[in-house]
């Protein structure tokens, strides 16, 4: 059964040291603030397949010990300042990846196999720095080399979606990567804009875009829970806020000033 809990109770389900998968669309920003406030540390992040503000905040707040990602960027607002500073300082274990390799790793976990072969990549220095990736002779078909990447089985997948029903079925629309995260993860925690009275699995139309409650451990309501990032049809991103973050987070002091105000503002809203 899916539990419907408060935002704080949801964040409290993420334990220090766990492998946490986060997406780039449907980002649980309110839950991220709650997580930082709870003082969790040593998290190992897997960005599916990239991240931006969320990863940068978690890094700046000292929440993570490792990150696997294909990129961290604030998009139009520029580079991710705490990510870059953390790399210079060696503040976390960095596992550079490439987008489809992260999907392949999740798919391996989804299928319960230890690795997944993937096209391309050969010739890239990623193979040099990712010693857990291997180049093997294909055991079947045309002879040739192929890259294999290990399964990625997150302890927790965390994302934000428009709505869930009372049973914990979550509407994810066409954002199937959120389902991929949930299939691979041991536990999935979801924040939503609202909980609806109707059964999302009732019709073929509504069920097609739904992640069933089987995969969902807990749901919490967080209105505008992706702010300042966008949420599909629900609201646009607050680009001015992201730009303000980008400017302030250039220095450690500026980052902490932003973070305190950000956490205080969230409390006011809640």
């Amino acid at each position, binding site marked *: 059964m899916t539990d419907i809990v408060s935002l704080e109770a949801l964040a409290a389900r993420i334990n220090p040291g766990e492998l946490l998968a986060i997406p780039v669309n449907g980002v649980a920003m309110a839950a991220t603030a709650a997580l930082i406030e709870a003082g969790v540390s040593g998290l190992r992040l897997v960005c599916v397949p990239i991240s931006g503000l969320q990863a940068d905040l978690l890094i700046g707040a000292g929440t993570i010990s490792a990150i696997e990602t294909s990129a961290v960027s604030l*998009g*139009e607002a520029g580079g991710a300042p705490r990510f870059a500073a953390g*790399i210079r300082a060696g503040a976390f274990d960095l596992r*550079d990846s490439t*987008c489809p390799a992260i999907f392949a790793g999740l798919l391996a976990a989804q299928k319960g196999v230890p690795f997944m072969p993937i*096209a391309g990549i050969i010739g*890239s*220095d990623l193979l040099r720095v990712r010693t857990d990736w291997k180049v093997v002779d294909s055991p079947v078909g045309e002879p040739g080399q192929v890259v294999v990447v290990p399964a990625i089985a997150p302890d927790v997948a965390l994302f934000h979606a428009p709505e869930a029903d009372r049973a914990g079925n979550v509407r994810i629309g066409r954002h199937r990567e959120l389902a*991929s995260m949930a299939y691979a993860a041991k536990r999935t925690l979801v924040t939503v804009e609202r909980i609806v009275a109707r059964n999302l699995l009732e019709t073929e139309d509504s069920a097609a875009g739904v992640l069933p409650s089987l995969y969902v451990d807990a749901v919490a309501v967080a209105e505008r829970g992706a702010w300042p990032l966008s949420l599909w049809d629900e609201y646009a991103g607050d680009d001015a806020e992201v730009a303000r973050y980008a400017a302030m987070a250039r220095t450690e002091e500026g980052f902490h000033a932003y973070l305190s105000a950000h956490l205080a503002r969230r409390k006011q809203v809640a």
Partner: protein
Amino acid sequence: MSSASAERERRELLIATIAGLLDGVRHVAVGASSPIPAAGAMLLRARNEAARKPPVRMTILGSKQHNFFTNGSVELFDCAAQGRVDAFFLGGGQIDGFGNINLVGTGDYPTTNVRWPGSFGSAYLYHLVPRVILFREEHSPRVFVPKVDFISAAAHTPEVARRGGPYALLSNMALFDFASERGGFRLRSIHPPYTAADIRANTGFAYQEPEHVPPTAPPDAATRTLIRGRILDELAESYPAFARSMAEAA
């Protein structure tokens, strides 16, 4: 000429050049934050429609209107593996004369002194998309280097079969073809008012330079009209700020 209208003409030349490089593709994908490549793809689509040529499908990552995928963000990569993506754009903090690109950073990995976002899908897509257009507006020796500090994606890997790789390199100053048999770039045209000497002074890698290099052709009047009308309208959904700045230069 005001600087705003000079800037618009610079962008229009790049847009028209990209449309030319894409001629003949069935499906072109454009990454996020790439308004000029997206505009080039839209221009090709509009031209093909007018000329009753085969339609062009385009996917702009992060767009709703210009993205028909329903299987999540892995679908672009699966689509490329199936041979269904004919063209894509890659940039790079560094691009070298072998066509290798670096999206990671400069200095010794991992504590790179300059760190860029990361490799995104480049390590994979470079192998799988036949016509990869390298697009980097800044044309300088710090970008166009003899050898990249980190190979995010390799251009040439004879040890494995591949269908993809670099097709051309377009900057603010010039257009290069990629000669895969020689594994390097060949100067195709120079954007006015730059000269062959400017290109030599600002390119850190060796390339082939034919005796006569023509100027890059500016867009004709019909193309300009199309860009300033329909293309800016179509761009506004994904790149509102860019479309606005182009319109304001009018």
